[in-house]
């Protein structure tokens, strides 16, 4: 019997997970929308995180409209019309907001490029050195010539 215990335990857990009530599609959509909308009376919190009366009312409105067959986009558009784009947790990728999406990536790329340049020079040991001008082509010849003249 002991041999079968792990198998029985696994099967029980699997069965329990299957019997757990799963959120319906509408509920899952509502929860996802709430995570993507900002609470307007509690700074920094999404509707999902907030328990402010207004957030609770918006949660109820979302469920009511989804149940009535309204699309996610239509409900979000309705809320943006009322509260402005500040209600969106992610700023839309257009206009001036596009900078919010592009700038961090550009800054990371520029920072990475600078780091690569510094590390490369560091490995060569030339990070803090002024660049040495190249030797003129006739330099060695001139040295030999001057040494020859210098000789007794």
């Amino acid at each position, binding site marked *: 019997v002991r041999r079968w215990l792990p198998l029985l335990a696994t099967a029980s857990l699997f069965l329990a997970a299957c019997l757990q009530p799963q959120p319906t599609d509408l509920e899952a959509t509502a929860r996802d929308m709430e995570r993507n909308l900002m609470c*307007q009376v509690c700074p920094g919190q999404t509707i999902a995180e907030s328990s402010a009366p*207004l957030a609770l*009312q*918006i949660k*109820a409105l979302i469920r009511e409209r989804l149940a009535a067959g309204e699309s996610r986009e239509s409900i979000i558009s309705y809320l943006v019309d*009322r*509260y*402005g784009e500040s209600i969106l947790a992610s700023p839309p990728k257009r206009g001036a907001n596009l900078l919010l999406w592009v700038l961090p990536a550009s800054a990371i790329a520029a920072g990475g490029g600078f780091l690569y340049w510094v590390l490369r020079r560091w490995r060569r040991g030339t990070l803090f050195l002024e660049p040495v001008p190249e030797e003129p082509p006739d330099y060695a010849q001139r040295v030999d010539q001057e040494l020859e003249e210098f000789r007794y």
Partner: protein
Amino acid sequence: VFIGVDIQDTEADALAFIREFNITYANGPDPQGRITIDYGVVKIPTSFFVDREGIIARRWLGAIDRRHITQFLEELLSP
């Protein structure tokens, strides 16, 4: 027309407020927050001035005094 909408409040508190300040204009509750959301209210109190065409001409956040009410109404009523 002057209408008061009682939001995020209990009925008892709202009635007590109406009695205390002897409010005579029409007042009603918004228990589901439908009017609150429809008008995009984020601050209490908020005053809306609606023109003859039913368009919101002005929104005032916070307490409003008699001088501003008179000024905004005159702006709306002027031909």
